[in-house]
Each structure stands twice: as C-alpha cells, then as structure tokens.
C-alpha cells in the first residue's frame, strides 16, 4: 500500500450543537496497528465510525483508501471491516451461520469464504462452537467472533472500537494476535483504554475534545513529554510515593507494585543519586534503589491527559 490509507484534514462532525470532531488532521499509512486513545468523550468512537464510512462528515479533505469520505461511501464500506463497541451480530445465528451471512453480504465466493472462515475459526479456538448461537457465547468468544466477521472479507482497513473491553485476559491476547496477523495486509485502527495495548501498537493517536493532540510512535510521543521517570524501589512504595510528591522537582508519584513511579521535570531534576539521597533524607518507606527508566506508556498518557505535553 503505497498511498496513504487515511488522509484527513479538518475533519468535523457535529451532533446537534455539539462538535464531536472539531477539525481532525491525520495521516496513516497501511500495515500498522494504530491505537486511538484519549479521555472520555474525546471523540474516539466518532472518529472510528467516520473512518468506517458510517457518518456524514465535513472536511477540507477526507480520504480513506483513496475514496472521499464526504462523497459516496459505498466503495469504502466494501473495503473496511468495522467492529463496534456493542456486540452487533445476530444472537440467534450460529457462529457458522453468521460467517456465511457475512460472506453472502460481501459476495465472497462460497468456497473461498469457507476456507477463510475455517482458518479463522481454528486460529481463534471458535471451531468447536461453530454450531452454537452467537448469543450463547461468552464475552470473549463474542468479541473474537466479531473480529473474525470483520476479517472475513479481507478488508484493507480494519476499524475496531474497544475490541477487548471487559474481555478475559486470555481472549484479549488472542484477539491481539488476530490483529497482528491482520496487520500484514491491512491498516488496523482501534481505540483502547488498556495501557498495555497502547504500548504494543505501532502508532498512537491522542485525541482530546475532538482534535488530534499528538500522533506518532510511542517513542515520538514520549519525546514530547518534558518529564523523566524514576522507579524507586523500596519497602513501602506508597509511603515513598507520598514523600516523593513533596520534592520540588517532582511532577507526580504513584505506587505500583514494589516501586513508586516518580515523574520529575526534566528541566529541574538532578541525577539519580541525588534523588535517592533526597528521598532517603525524607525518611520515607525504606528506599533501596533508584532506577532511571524510559517513560512508560502510562506516564506518557497521563502526561498528555494532564496537558503537560508539548
């Protein structure tokens, strides 16, 4: 895919008086997994639905897979697979029937469809359940079925809205494996509130109040945050975190497991040994080791959420 799969300039969407998308500029090339993140109500679902050709939008330019979003979207829909937040498949159809139905809608030749479905079902562990009604599947399996249904027509663009929300951790891994496999021949765009998934993607799009605040690889995004992270290991991480917040160069501190994540302003912070001394001086929580660490995804996202990013 040489051309840009997604090219948006000034994309806007209003619902009544509310502007869900207030001028989105975005360039996405193919064969990547892109995570759209941001606070509640930022416009993530709206953006995803717009990309899938489900909304009428206004834009200076809005091209998805070479087609114009503001024009006739029939062609787009043929090449986009969309997995909404709520389970959108028919509960009475069995797994097999659902896939045959999708195949017919997309006019996939039956033999091809059967072969593809078989491969996907085996890969996701759904094969034993092929005759079970979709409504009787567990949450994780429903989601897997939804993703499989979207992948059946081999779309060039796969759009998923919180595909792993509330799903058990094993199924989440399996769905992610599906997405990684899909990435070999498609652009995958998803929204997620799981930090580890945001960290695993190729590119992030941080959305806030209907605008793109930042778009880039996790490293690029990290570069825009004027913070450094120190993981402080000790006996009582919560006490350490509380003490660390009092330091003049600290932006924040959080206890997580056996360490306290202390974020400091890069402009003001001294080196690790000095920080250790400062913390030990406060007599807090038995500090043993101060480890400078690259900004993790959680700290990056938190920084963006707090408006600290450049």
């Amino acid at each position, binding site marked *: 895919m040489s051309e840009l799969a997604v090219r948006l300039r000034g994309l806007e969407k209003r619902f009544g008086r509310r502007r869900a998308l207030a001028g989105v500029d975005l360039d996405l090339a193919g064969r990547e997994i892109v995570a759209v993140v941001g606070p509640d109500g930022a416009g993530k679902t709206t953006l995803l639905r717009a990309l899938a050709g489900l909304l009428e939008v206004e834009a200076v330019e809005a091209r998805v897979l070479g087609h114009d979003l503001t024009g006739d979207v029939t062609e787009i829909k043929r090449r986009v697979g969309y997995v909404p937040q709520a389970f959108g498949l028919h509960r009475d159809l069995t797994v097999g029937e659902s896939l045959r139905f999708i195949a017919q809608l997309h006019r996939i030749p039956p033999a091809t469809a059967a072969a593809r479905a078989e491969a996907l079902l085996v890969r996701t562990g759904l094969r034993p359940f092929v005759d079970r009604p979709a409504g009787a599947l567990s949450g994780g399996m429903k989601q897997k079925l939804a993703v499989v249904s979207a992948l059946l027509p081999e779309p060039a663009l796969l759009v998923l809205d919180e595909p792993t929300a*509330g799903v058990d951790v094993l199924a989440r891994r399996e769905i992610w494996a599906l997405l990684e496999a899909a990435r070999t021949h498609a652009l995958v765009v998803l929204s997620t509130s799981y930090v580890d998934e945001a960290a695993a993607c190729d590119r992030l799009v941080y959305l806030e109040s209907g605008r793109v605040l930042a778009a880039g690889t996790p490293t690029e995004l990290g570069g825009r945050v004027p913070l450094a992270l120190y993981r402080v290991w*000790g006996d009582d991480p919560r006490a350490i975190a509380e003490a660390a917040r009092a330091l003049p160069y600290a932006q924040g501190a*959080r206890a997580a497991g056996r360490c306290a994540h202390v974020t400091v302003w890069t402009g003001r912070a001294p080196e690790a040994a000095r920080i250790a001394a400062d913390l030990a001086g406060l007599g807090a929580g038995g500090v043993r*080791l101060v*480890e400078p660490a690259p900004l993790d995804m*959680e700290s990056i996202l*938190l920084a963006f959420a707090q408006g600290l990013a450049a």
Partner: protein
Amino acid sequence: MSAPAILARGLTRRFGTFTAVDALDITVASGTIHAFLGANGSGKSTTIRMLIGLLRPTAGSIVVDGIDVIRHPRRVRDRIGYMGQRVSLYQGLTLRENVEFYAGLYGIAGDELAHRWGALRERFDLGEAEAERPEDLSGGIRQRAGLALATLHRPRLLFLDEPTAGVDLHSRALFWELIQEEAAAGVTVFVTTHFLEEADYCDWVSFIDNGRLIADAPPEELRRRFSPGYRIELALPPSARAAARAALGGAERAVAETADGVCVVSPRLDGALLAAVARLAAAEPGARVRVEQPAMPEIFRRVLAEARA
C-alpha cells in the same frame, strides 16, 4: 490480629441452572485494599452484591464487620459505602442536591454536613462541579463524585464495583490515589475491576473466572508463583562483573553474565537484593540498572491458562 473486615465462606449463587458464583471463600483484612478481578460475566458483580446484602446467596455465609449479612442485611448499611457499576447520581439534581439527598438518608445535616462535604469537595476536587448536573459532567468527575458520596457517611468499608470502567487514565490514577488515602486512614476497600494492572495498587488480589476463585494472594506472591520473577540487569565493565556475581548470588536467585554486565533473576524482590544492586551501581561510574517487574496482565494470563488447563 484483628478480625477480618469481610469473611465469606462457600459463597454460591445460582440463577436457575446457571451457577454464577461457585463456593467462594473470601477473607479481607481490615484497612486493606482488596482487588477482585475477573472478566465481564465472571461473577464479580454478583459477588459484590451478595456481600453487601443486595442479593441473597444460594449457599454460604457472609460476615461483614461482624454482622451476618444474610440474616441481617440491613444492619450493615450504616457502615458500608457502595459505588455500583452505574454511578447513581440522580439526573435532574445538581451535585450539591445529590449530596443533600444522600446525607438525608444517613441522617447527616446542618453544620456536620457542611463540614464533611466541604472537606470532600476539597479533596476530590469537585468545587466546580458542585452546581452542575451529572449529565453535564465528564465521566471522570462523575466517578469521583460517586466515590465522594459513598464516603460521605464515613463508612468503615467501601465496596466499589468497577469504579474505573469507562474512565480516562488520568482520572483513574487520581481515583486510585484517593482509594489509597482511604485505606491509609483505616477504611477497608473491596474493589472489582477488569483492569488487571490495577492489582498493583492493592494489598490482596482475588481472581475469579467463571464463578470460581482461581487465585487469592497478595500481588507479590502471584508474581512469585506465576512468573519467572524479577529480572535485574546491571550494566558493568567486565572487571566488576565477577564481584557483582558473587554479591548478587543467593537462594532462589539465578545470576548470569550478559553481554553488558550481569543479570539476576529472583522470584522475590527483597530489600537486601535491592541494596546490593544499589551499592554495585553506585560503586561503578557509568553503571546502569534495569529492573523488570513482571506485568500483571501477563501474570494473570498464566494464572488463567493454568486454571483452565
């Protein structure tokens, strides 16, 4: 040792032929944060609703703060605060009016109410939201307001059902800070969530799958049992490596040399090990330390895989 704040034995709940919760044993120590993890549909909400007396168990016993919840469900109500999955702020009333409403139900009024709400408003950063209606507030603020309301009557136990679901990361982090403050003040907090990394904020974790308890231990112990352990890499010049290996070796630890230095893998991260690493790093200019803490999602994947096998 004081009596546990929550003690449930053989807790079971069936809906027709479907067993939502299957013979759970739960013990929650006073003043701790107890995480109850599991996927949607695993039985989390059913369990928490039984613990607070909203739902009668099919079998089993529940004692909360010394009260038999099954026989006397109403007696616990003064002592517990609850935040359900749908935060129940009434639409059509401002936040302040919601506060007055709940206060009225608990018998808090006048100066006492003003005092308490003033403090909560400050701590939870709800000053600007006070005169707004819930439908006009963001998800994160509504969650904080829900927690504030749950603590208004100073309960000794807090039951929070997926309080961070649908809430942005920043609010989630703030929320956990608030919960940790409550625990520090002696409140027992029982929290359900499907964000596994939040287990690290808690003192104890119970993990439920298809109605059964498949893990029940502090996060550190789960790390010890279900992961290869902590991995500490110390980049050192070759001259210092042998000494480092000697210093770091010990029971349960595996020390090895790597391309840049030394690496030690240990199921437990005890103070002595950390101190040793710190000393070595300080002694050698240009030494670099990297500590890898096994992530909770990965740990729970193993727990689940083992349980289902």
